[in-house]
Protein backbone atom coordinates (compact mmCIF):
# COMPACT_ATOMS: atom_id res chain seq x y z
CA UNK A 1 0.00 0.00 0.00
CA UNK A 2 1.28 3.49 -0.87
CA UNK A 3 2.38 5.07 2.46
CA UNK A 4 1.18 8.55 1.52
CA UNK A 5 -2.24 7.24 0.42
CA UNK A 6 -2.54 5.25 3.65
CA UNK A 7 -1.70 8.34 5.71
CA UNK A 8 -4.36 10.35 3.85
CA UNK A 9 -6.99 7.63 4.36
CA UNK A 10 -6.20 7.32 8.05
CA UNK A 11 -6.27 11.11 8.33
CA UNK A 12 -9.81 11.04 6.93
CA UNK A 13 -10.77 8.49 9.60
CA UNK A 14 -9.32 10.76 12.30
CA UNK A 15 -11.15 13.80 10.90
CA UNK A 16 -14.45 11.94 10.81
CA UNK A 17 -13.97 10.45 14.27
CA UNK A 18 -13.05 13.71 15.94
CA UNK A 19 -15.37 15.75 13.74
CA UNK A 20 -12.47 18.07 12.93
CA UNK A 21 -11.53 18.79 9.32
CA UNK A 22 -8.39 20.67 10.39
CA UNK A 23 -6.55 17.59 11.65
CA UNK A 24 -3.35 16.99 9.69
CA UNK A 25 -1.52 13.79 10.54
CA UNK A 26 2.15 13.03 10.29
CA UNK A 27 3.87 9.82 11.36
CA UNK A 28 4.87 11.63 14.57
CA UNK A 29 1.34 12.70 15.57
CA UNK A 30 0.36 11.19 18.93
CA UNK A 31 -2.33 11.48 21.61
CA UNK A 32 -0.67 14.61 23.01
CA UNK A 33 -1.40 16.44 19.76
CA UNK A 34 -5.16 15.80 19.58
CA UNK A 35 -7.05 16.92 22.65
CA UNK A 36 -9.85 14.32 22.57
CA UNK A 37 -7.65 11.33 21.73
CA UNK A 38 -8.14 9.17 24.84
CA UNK A 39 -8.24 5.40 25.27
CA UNK A 40 -11.86 5.06 24.18
CA UNK A 41 -11.35 7.26 21.13
CA UNK A 42 -8.32 5.15 20.31
CA UNK A 43 -10.57 2.08 20.23
CA UNK A 44 -13.06 3.93 18.04
CA UNK A 45 -10.26 4.88 15.65
CA UNK A 46 -8.99 1.32 15.58
CA UNK A 47 -12.43 -0.16 14.93
CA UNK A 48 -12.95 2.33 12.08
CA UNK A 49 -9.58 1.27 10.64
CA UNK A 50 -10.55 -2.41 11.05
CA UNK A 51 -13.70 -1.72 9.06
CA UNK A 52 -11.94 0.27 6.34
CA UNK A 53 -9.23 -2.32 5.70
CA UNK A 54 -11.04 -5.53 6.69
CA UNK A 55 -8.65 -6.14 9.58
CA UNK A 56 -9.04 -7.62 13.05
CA UNK A 57 -6.81 -6.15 15.76
CA UNK A 58 -6.46 -7.63 19.18
CA UNK A 59 -5.38 -5.79 22.31
CA UNK A 60 -1.87 -7.19 22.17
CA UNK A 61 -1.44 -5.72 18.66
CA UNK A 62 -2.42 -2.23 19.69
CA UNK A 63 -1.17 -1.93 23.26
CA UNK A 64 2.25 -0.53 22.36
CA UNK A 65 1.18 1.99 19.72
CA UNK A 66 2.92 5.32 20.44
CA UNK A 67 2.01 7.42 17.45
CA UNK A 68 0.42 7.46 14.01
CA UNK A 69 3.58 5.98 12.51
CA UNK A 70 3.23 2.87 14.71
CA UNK A 71 -0.41 2.63 13.69
CA UNK A 72 0.39 2.89 9.97
CA UNK A 73 3.12 0.26 10.30
CA UNK A 74 0.66 -2.08 12.01
CA UNK A 75 -1.89 -1.64 9.22
CA UNK A 76 0.79 -2.31 6.60
CA UNK A 77 1.98 -5.40 8.46
CA UNK A 78 -1.51 -6.85 8.82
CA UNK A 79 -2.52 -6.12 5.21
CA UNK A 80 0.73 -7.45 3.71
Amino acid at each position, binding site marked *: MNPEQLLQEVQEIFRDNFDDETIVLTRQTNAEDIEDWDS*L*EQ*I*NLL*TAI*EKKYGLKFN*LADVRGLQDVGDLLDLVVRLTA
Partner: protein
Amino acid sequence: MGNVYFITGASSDVGCLLIDRLLTAGSKEDIVVAQGYGDLSHLAPLCAKFKGQIRTYDVDLADPAAVNLFLTNVQQTLPTPTHIVHLPALRVVNTKFKNFDEARFALDMQVQAGAATAICKQFLPKMAKAKNGRVLFMLTSYVLGVPPKNTAAYVMAKEALHGLAKSLAADYAASGVTVNCVAPSMMETKFLTDTPDLIVQAAAEANPMGRNATPADVVPAMAFLLSEEARFITGITLPITGGSAV
Protein backbone atom coordinates in the same frame (compact mmCIF):
# COMPACT_ATOMS: atom_id res chain seq x y z
CA MET B 1 -50.96 -24.12 41.13
CA GLY B 2 -47.37 -23.54 40.06
CA ASN B 3 -45.62 -20.36 39.10
CA VAL B 4 -46.20 -18.75 35.73
CA TYR B 5 -43.04 -17.09 34.47
CA PHE B 6 -43.59 -14.55 31.70
CA ILE B 7 -40.19 -14.02 30.08
CA THR B 8 -39.51 -11.75 27.12
CA GLY B 9 -36.19 -12.14 25.34
CA ALA B 10 -36.39 -15.75 26.50
CA SER B 11 -34.39 -17.07 23.56
CA SER B 12 -31.32 -15.04 24.58
CA ASP B 13 -28.39 -16.71 26.33
CA VAL B 14 -29.52 -15.25 29.65
CA GLY B 15 -33.15 -16.17 29.03
CA CYS B 16 -32.36 -19.79 28.27
CA LEU B 17 -30.13 -20.18 31.31
CA LEU B 18 -32.71 -18.52 33.54
CA ILE B 19 -35.51 -20.79 32.30
CA ASP B 20 -33.34 -23.85 32.87
CA ARG B 21 -32.56 -22.75 36.41
CA LEU B 22 -36.14 -21.81 37.32
CA LEU B 23 -37.72 -24.97 35.97
CA THR B 24 -35.01 -27.25 37.34
CA ALA B 25 -35.52 -25.83 40.82
CA GLY B 26 -39.30 -25.51 40.54
CA SER B 27 -42.26 -27.85 40.34
CA LYS B 28 -43.70 -29.72 37.37
CA GLU B 29 -46.67 -27.36 37.52
CA ASP B 30 -44.57 -24.29 36.72
CA ILE B 31 -45.10 -22.77 33.29
CA VAL B 32 -42.90 -20.44 31.27
CA VAL B 33 -44.33 -18.09 28.67
CA ALA B 34 -41.24 -17.62 26.51
CA GLN B 35 -41.16 -14.79 23.96
CA GLY B 36 -38.51 -14.56 21.29
CA TYR B 37 -38.41 -13.08 17.82
CA GLY B 38 -37.13 -15.14 14.92
CA ASP B 39 -34.88 -17.26 17.07
CA LEU B 40 -37.16 -19.60 19.02
CA SER B 41 -35.02 -22.54 17.89
CA HIS B 42 -32.67 -21.61 20.75
CA LEU B 43 -35.43 -22.76 23.10
CA ALA B 44 -35.81 -26.20 21.51
CA PRO B 45 -33.49 -28.05 23.94
CA LEU B 46 -35.36 -26.56 26.91
CA CYS B 47 -38.75 -27.47 25.42
CA ALA B 48 -37.50 -31.03 25.07
CA LYS B 49 -36.11 -31.06 28.60
CA PHE B 50 -39.22 -29.56 30.25
CA LYS B 51 -41.98 -31.14 28.18
CA GLY B 52 -45.20 -29.14 28.18
CA GLN B 53 -43.90 -26.50 30.57
CA ILE B 54 -42.71 -23.89 28.05
CA ARG B 55 -45.13 -22.01 25.79
CA THR B 56 -43.19 -20.25 23.07
CA TYR B 57 -44.33 -17.11 21.28
CA ASP B 58 -42.66 -15.53 18.26
CA VAL B 59 -43.50 -11.84 18.68
CA ASP B 60 -41.91 -8.64 17.37
CA LEU B 61 -41.90 -6.45 20.47
CA ALA B 62 -41.22 -3.40 18.30
CA ASP B 63 -44.78 -3.76 16.97
CA PRO B 64 -47.33 -2.53 19.55
CA ALA B 65 -50.21 -4.32 17.78
CA ALA B 66 -48.32 -7.63 17.91
CA VAL B 67 -47.58 -7.07 21.60
CA ASN B 68 -51.27 -6.47 22.30
CA LEU B 69 -52.27 -9.66 20.48
CA PHE B 70 -49.62 -11.59 22.38
CA LEU B 71 -50.77 -10.28 25.76
CA THR B 72 -54.42 -10.93 24.97
CA ASN B 73 -53.65 -14.50 23.96
CA VAL B 74 -51.67 -15.16 27.13
CA GLN B 75 -54.40 -13.61 29.25
CA GLN B 76 -57.08 -15.76 27.61
CA THR B 77 -55.23 -19.06 27.63
CA LEU B 78 -53.07 -19.12 30.74
CA PRO B 79 -53.27 -18.16 34.40
CA THR B 80 -52.03 -14.66 35.28
CA PRO B 81 -48.22 -14.60 35.46
CA THR B 82 -46.67 -14.71 38.91
CA HIS B 83 -43.32 -13.50 37.59
CA ILE B 84 -42.42 -11.11 34.77
CA VAL B 85 -38.90 -10.90 33.38
CA HIS B 86 -38.16 -8.41 30.60
CA LEU B 87 -34.80 -8.94 28.92
CA PRO B 88 -34.84 -7.70 25.33
CA ALA B 89 -33.01 -4.77 23.77
CA LEU B 90 -31.68 -3.95 20.35
CA ARG B 91 -28.00 -4.75 20.10
CA VAL B 92 -25.67 -2.00 21.25
CA VAL B 93 -24.17 -0.03 18.40
CA ASN B 94 -21.39 2.30 19.48
CA THR B 95 -22.22 5.44 17.55
CA LYS B 96 -21.00 8.98 17.83
CA PHE B 97 -23.83 11.26 18.85
CA LYS B 98 -23.57 13.20 15.58
CA ASN B 99 -24.71 9.98 13.87
CA PHE B 100 -27.57 9.30 16.31
CA ASP B 101 -30.18 7.14 14.57
CA GLU B 102 -33.60 8.36 15.68
CA ALA B 103 -35.52 5.58 13.92
CA ARG B 104 -33.48 2.83 15.54
CA PHE B 105 -33.76 4.56 18.90
CA ALA B 106 -37.55 4.63 18.57
CA LEU B 107 -37.54 0.88 17.91
CA ASP B 108 -35.31 0.24 20.92
CA MET B 109 -37.54 2.36 23.13
CA GLN B 110 -40.55 0.37 21.98
CA VAL B 111 -38.84 -3.00 22.54
CA GLN B 112 -37.57 -2.02 25.96
CA ALA B 113 -39.80 0.56 27.65
CA GLY B 114 -42.88 0.36 25.43
CA ALA B 115 -43.28 -3.41 25.60
CA ALA B 116 -42.47 -3.47 29.33
CA THR B 117 -45.15 -0.86 29.94
CA ALA B 118 -47.75 -2.82 27.99
CA ILE B 119 -46.87 -6.07 29.77
CA CYS B 120 -46.98 -4.50 33.21
CA LYS B 121 -50.21 -2.68 32.46
CA GLN B 122 -51.78 -5.96 31.44
CA PHE B 123 -50.66 -8.08 34.36
CA LEU B 124 -49.63 -5.97 37.36
CA PRO B 125 -53.14 -5.06 38.50
CA LYS B 126 -53.96 -8.79 38.57
CA MET B 127 -50.73 -9.63 40.37
CA ALA B 128 -51.60 -6.94 42.92
CA LYS B 129 -55.00 -8.51 43.51
CA ALA B 130 -53.24 -11.83 44.12
CA LYS B 131 -51.02 -9.96 46.64
CA ASN B 132 -47.93 -11.52 45.14
CA GLY B 133 -45.67 -11.05 42.17
CA ARG B 134 -42.14 -10.46 40.99
CA VAL B 135 -41.06 -8.18 38.16
CA LEU B 136 -37.47 -8.03 36.96
CA PHE B 137 -35.93 -5.91 34.21
CA MET B 138 -32.55 -6.29 32.55
CA LEU B 139 -30.60 -3.03 32.70
CA THR B 140 -26.89 -2.42 32.23
CA SER B 141 -24.07 -1.15 34.39
CA TYR B 142 -24.03 1.83 32.00
CA VAL B 143 -26.84 3.29 34.17
CA LEU B 144 -24.47 3.28 37.18
CA GLY B 145 -22.18 6.29 37.30
CA VAL B 146 -20.69 7.62 34.09
CA PRO B 147 -21.60 5.60 30.99
CA PRO B 148 -19.08 4.94 28.24
CA LYS B 149 -19.02 7.32 25.30
CA ASN B 150 -21.11 6.70 22.18
CA THR B 151 -23.92 4.75 23.84
CA ALA B 152 -26.61 7.46 24.12
CA ALA B 153 -29.43 5.47 22.49
CA TYR B 154 -28.83 2.36 24.57
CA VAL B 155 -28.43 4.27 27.83
CA MET B 156 -31.57 6.36 27.24
CA ALA B 157 -33.72 3.29 26.54
CA LYS B 158 -32.34 1.52 29.62
CA GLU B 159 -32.94 4.61 31.75
CA ALA B 160 -36.57 4.68 30.59
CA LEU B 161 -36.92 1.09 31.74
CA HIS B 162 -35.15 2.01 34.97
CA GLY B 163 -37.66 4.80 35.56
CA LEU B 164 -40.55 2.45 34.94
CA ALA B 165 -39.16 -0.05 37.45
CA LYS B 166 -38.76 2.58 40.16
CA SER B 167 -42.22 3.97 39.58
CA LEU B 168 -43.88 0.56 39.60
CA ALA B 169 -41.95 -0.44 42.72
CA ALA B 170 -43.49 2.53 44.50
CA ASP B 171 -46.95 1.94 43.05
CA TYR B 172 -47.15 -1.76 43.91
CA ALA B 173 -45.06 -2.18 47.08
CA ALA B 174 -48.12 -2.29 49.30
CA SER B 175 -49.62 -5.14 47.29
CA GLY B 176 -46.71 -7.53 47.65
CA VAL B 177 -45.47 -7.14 44.10
CA THR B 178 -41.76 -6.37 43.86
CA VAL B 179 -40.11 -4.66 40.90
CA ASN B 180 -36.35 -4.83 40.58
CA CYS B 181 -33.55 -4.61 38.03
CA VAL B 182 -30.18 -6.19 37.46
CA ALA B 183 -27.35 -4.13 35.96
CA PRO B 184 -24.59 -6.35 34.61
CA SER B 185 -21.36 -5.06 33.15
CA MET B 186 -20.48 -6.20 29.65
CA MET B 187 -21.69 -9.77 29.34
CA GLU B 188 -20.20 -12.09 26.73
CA THR B 189 -23.24 -13.40 24.86
CA LYS B 190 -24.50 -13.36 21.29
CA PHE B 191 -25.93 -9.91 22.15
CA LEU B 192 -22.42 -8.53 21.53
CA THR B 193 -22.38 -9.57 17.88
CA ASP B 194 -22.29 -5.94 16.71
CA THR B 195 -19.74 -4.81 19.30
CA PRO B 196 -16.15 -4.70 18.03
CA ASP B 197 -13.89 -7.33 19.62
CA LEU B 198 -11.47 -4.62 20.73
CA ILE B 199 -14.19 -3.05 22.88
CA VAL B 200 -15.05 -6.44 24.40
CA GLN B 201 -11.39 -7.19 25.10
CA ALA B 202 -10.77 -3.71 26.55
CA ALA B 203 -13.80 -4.06 28.87
CA ALA B 204 -12.49 -7.40 30.12
CA GLU B 205 -9.05 -5.94 30.75
CA ALA B 206 -10.49 -2.91 32.57
CA ASN B 207 -12.70 -5.02 34.85
CA PRO B 208 -11.22 -5.44 38.37
CA MET B 209 -11.84 -9.18 38.05
CA GLY B 210 -10.03 -9.24 34.72
CA ARG B 211 -12.90 -10.54 32.63
CA ASN B 212 -16.37 -9.75 31.37
CA ALA B 213 -19.53 -11.14 32.95
CA THR B 214 -21.17 -14.32 31.72
CA PRO B 215 -24.82 -15.40 31.94
CA ALA B 216 -23.78 -17.80 34.70
CA ASP B 217 -22.67 -14.79 36.79
CA VAL B 218 -25.95 -12.97 36.31
CA VAL B 219 -28.68 -15.60 36.36
CA PRO B 220 -28.28 -16.65 40.03
CA ALA B 221 -28.81 -13.04 41.13
CA MET B 222 -31.89 -12.85 38.92
CA ALA B 223 -33.24 -16.08 40.37
CA PHE B 224 -32.79 -14.66 43.85
CA LEU B 225 -34.70 -11.45 43.06
CA LEU B 226 -37.49 -13.62 41.62
CA SER B 227 -37.61 -15.84 44.70
CA GLU B 228 -39.93 -15.78 47.69
CA GLU B 229 -36.94 -14.89 49.90
CA ALA B 230 -36.57 -11.55 48.09
CA ARG B 231 -40.07 -10.45 49.15
CA PHE B 232 -38.85 -7.33 51.05
CA ILE B 233 -36.57 -6.11 48.26
CA THR B 234 -38.14 -3.77 45.74
CA GLY B 235 -37.06 -0.84 43.59
CA ILE B 236 -33.41 -1.81 43.55
CA THR B 237 -30.94 -2.05 40.71
CA LEU B 238 -28.41 -4.73 41.54
CA PRO B 239 -24.94 -4.21 40.03
CA ILE B 240 -23.38 -7.44 38.75
CA THR B 241 -20.11 -6.05 37.55
CA GLY B 242 -17.09 -7.70 39.10
CA GLY B 243 -16.48 -4.33 40.71
CA SER B 244 -16.29 -2.29 37.49
CA ALA B 245 -19.31 -0.18 38.53
CA VAL B 246 -20.66 -0.04 42.07
